[in-house]
């Protein structure tokens, strides 16, 4: 995968979190944010399926979490900040999400970052 970065806001480069995404991913985001509480993190780790079913997630959403499919979760409307809490609870972090989004290994992404660009307003259209 190359390190060139497109100067546009289209997927898969960028997922803008709109109202439409917030509606689509409402339960997924709510589930992620429930993990702000340590007792919920314990419950989730003890039985992922049961916890997610109780949170009202669909079979598709549960499958995405079980696959640690961070890109799929963002596309399903899970907010990055909420999915980050899921990742943290599972012993992963922002780099795992980013690497999955960028279709790279974590180590490769870390090597490439910071991914330097140099453009001022109006440039690099």
């Amino acid at each position, binding site marked *: 995968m190359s390190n060139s*970065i*497109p*100067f*546009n*806001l289209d*997927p*898969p*480069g*960028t*997922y*803008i*979190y*709109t*109202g439409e*995404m*917030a509606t689509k991913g*409402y339960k997924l*985001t*709510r589930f992620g*944010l429930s*993990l*702000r*509480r*340590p007792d919920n*993190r314990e419950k989730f780790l003890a039985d992922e399926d049961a916890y997610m079913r109780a949170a009202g997630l669909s079979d598709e959403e549960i499958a995405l979490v079980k696959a640690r499919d961070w890109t799929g979760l*963002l596309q399903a409307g899970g*907010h*990055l*900040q*909420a999915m*980050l*809490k899921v990742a*943290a*609870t599972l012993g992963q972090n*922002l780099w795992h*999400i*980013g*690497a999955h*989004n*960028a*279709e790279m290994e974590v180590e490769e*992404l870390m090597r*490439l*970052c*910071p*991914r*330097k*660009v*140099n*453009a*001022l*307003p*109006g*440039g*690099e259209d």
Partner: protein
Amino acid sequence: MAKIIGGFAISHTPSMGMEYDKGMANGFSPHWQPWFDGTRPMKDWLARMNPDRMVIVYNDHLNHFDFDAYPTLAIGIAPEFRQADEGWGLRPFPSLVGDVDLGWHLTNKLVRDGGFDLTVCQDLAIDHGIYSWMPYLKDTPWDTPIVPIAINMVRHPIPTSQRLYNFGKSIRAAIESFPSDERILVVATGGMSHQISGARFGIANEKLDRYFLSKLKSYVQELVDLPQEELMRLGGTEAAELAIWFAMRGALTDNIDEVYSYYTFPAITGCGVIAFEEKG
């Protein structure tokens, strides 16, 4: 009446906070040492300014609020604000002290005169938006009372840059009618260039960040007039948080000195700080 003595703007990121804790325990990593060194003069400046109060415009990252109710503009009014658990436990820092009187005064003025309908939060947990940089600038106990104001930056629509600039102007008017002789600093935090999701993860536009820092004092309207999409396109989606900086700049006059600015790019977020003092 209370007086605004100056203001500063500073970046925030979760890693900035975690690296502080690690750095103080075992020494800073080569990536973060420059940020620690670069914020030393800010710490000295803040101690010299010795403000009585700080009004801090920041943004929450779904660590206190959730989408059941996500306010576009919210103000914290409480004797203290606890640290938010972001999902990986609390860091060893105390709660922040609040100023209830100033909080209500600002609310009354901003809602009734300023035209800014704030959501009032009498319980507000604060995340890395403030906790990540505060240790670099102030030793504990953190005894300078604050009024935190949270701006939605996590779900579009976010407030426009002009709106936040005007918000700053209204904050100024509100502070200047507060019956006290307090000396107040206005602070903004957010940005700079970064994007933490999508295939553009890790974008780093130092040129854009330095351009922004160079224009904030004397050419702020040029920055305010930039479409936020342009900041996001060039600096990453989270660079939109730079719009928060306009609230601080709007609260200051044009009769200011730029007393310090510093910039570095430690990992995946442009980290900058800039400080202004009112001459009057």
